[in-house]
């Protein structure tokens, strides 16, 4: 028998029980979403190269056009479906592979199986999207006690820079906050002692009562605190991250990620954003589960 054909590094062919288990979970999750009124859509693997798909595989097609493999369903669906929206909200769900050539973790494959949902034309709704995402995570077999939800709001780090310095946010200062580097931030920006202490507390995950008012973001952060209060009785740990690194760049409101205890990886996420519809910009909200990571988390 010939040896199997070689494949690019980090790519695998799956057979047997692993495939059966993934298909079974996928169907369970899609049935749940369709039962909640989400319409299943099939989206293309290829689209013309787009700035948001930076970091994905790109190549020139036979017509000389630059095309890219999909890296994330949320912006892809928004580009393809939102411009056709009628007046009312539209709720969709999807499942399939996305390809990210530089996985965040060593043993993670470039192909990620993303299963999720989006609703276009609904204002707010991030709380419901988080609830639904956690339902999907539970249906995938991951226990609530093995999940930690990090909560943030898009632009919170920039708001902190603006309100503590009184100046427009500089990208490098936002980056320092994302790295939690309070020391260099405070070298760059002289802050009163109380504000500096509050900034350190915010970056180090201290309770918001110790920093939110001093940093001028109490109103925004109160939404995150209410969400934490909703999650606690369900046994789901949570943390407020004022400057997350992994957020999708398209989120403009609530932004959440679900981290697995044993994988130490993001197994689900979502948030609020805007899409360009036929008659202008409209609110949208969504969430997704990375099925392979979720199955790894439950030990499959």
């Amino acid at each position, binding site marked *: 028998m010939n040896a199997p054909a070689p494949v690019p590094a980090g790519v695998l062919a799956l057979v047997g029980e692993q495939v059966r288990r993934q298909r079974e979970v996928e169907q369970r999750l899609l049935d749940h979403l369709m039962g909640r009124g989400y319409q299943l859509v099939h989206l293309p693997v290829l689209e013309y190269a787009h700035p948001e798909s930076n970091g994905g595989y790109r190549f020139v097609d036979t017509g000389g056009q630059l095309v890219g493999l999909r890296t994330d369903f949320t912006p892809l669906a928004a580009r393809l479906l939102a411009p056709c929206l009628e007046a009312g909200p539209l709720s969709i769900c999807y499942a399939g592979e996305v390809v990210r050539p530089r996985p*965040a*973790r*060593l043993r993670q494959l470039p192909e990620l199986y993303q299963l999720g949902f989006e609703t276009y034309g609904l204002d707010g709704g991030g709380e419901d999207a988080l609830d639904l995402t956690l339902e999907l995570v539970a249906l995938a077999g991951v226990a609530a006690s093995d999940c*930690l939800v*990090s909560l943030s709001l898009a632009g919170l780090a920039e708001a902190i820079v603006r309100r503590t310095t009184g100046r427009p946010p500089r990208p490098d200062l936002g980056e320092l906050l994302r*790295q*939690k*580097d309070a*020391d*260099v931030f405070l070298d760059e920006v002289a802050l009163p002692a109380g504000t500096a*202490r509050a900034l*350190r*507390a915010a970056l*180090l*995950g*201290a309770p918001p009562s110790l920093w939110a008012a001093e940093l001028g973001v109490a109103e925004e952060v109160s939404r995150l605190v209410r969400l934490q209060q909703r999650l606690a009785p369900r046994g789901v*740990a949570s*943390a407020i*991250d004022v400057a997350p*690194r*992994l957020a999708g760049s398209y989120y403009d409101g609530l932004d959440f990620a679900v*981290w697995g*205890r044993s994988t*130490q*990886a993001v197994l689900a996420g979502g948030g609020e954003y805007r899409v360009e519809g036929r008659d202008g910009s409209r609110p949208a909200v969504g969430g997704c589960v990375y099925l392979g990571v979720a199955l790894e988390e439950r030990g499959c």
Partner: protein
Amino acid sequence: MLRFAVPKGRLLEPLVELADRHGLALGEALAGAGRQLVVETAGLRLLLLKDADVPVYVEQGAADCGVAGLDQILDRDADVLRLLRLPFGACRLCLIAREGEVVREEGRPLVLASKYQRLAGMLAQRRGLNATLVPLAGSVELAARLGLADAVVDLVETGRTLRENGLQPVEEWLAVAPYLIAQRAAFLWKCEEMRALRRALGGQE
């Protein structure tokens, strides 16, 4: 238990001194370790690593946190949190040339030698320099002295080695200090323990 990556190189001694001063008895634990690379003490599992490997172990979650120089963090392009800048080991990453020489492109790319291939390349590009990088493992000063490269990019602490080899720092490219770093997920899951370790290394809250 926090898995704490400890660098075995030039940062070890001042780190142990700092920790011991704040009541975290690393010195005692390490003195009894012999050739062991994993040592447990006071709620910490100490992982003894080469300095350059600390950011990799932490980024990938094989360690929850560790101590690494900013030079190593940036050269490894490690996505880690920088929880505390430590009060020792500060130095400068400099462009270094032979005494009296001016570093210029003069119609051809500059040849720069460095242990920090990614970081030196990035900083050269940020300065608009068209540079070819020669990766070297050590004693990079020789590369400038013997003409292998037009200049070298390396750490300067006191400048004594440079002077003794007829070299001088031409430009400071980066202020370097060691940091207590943490893996993103580990920081979320073990936030209280990380904050306690940070306090034990002299960090204010």
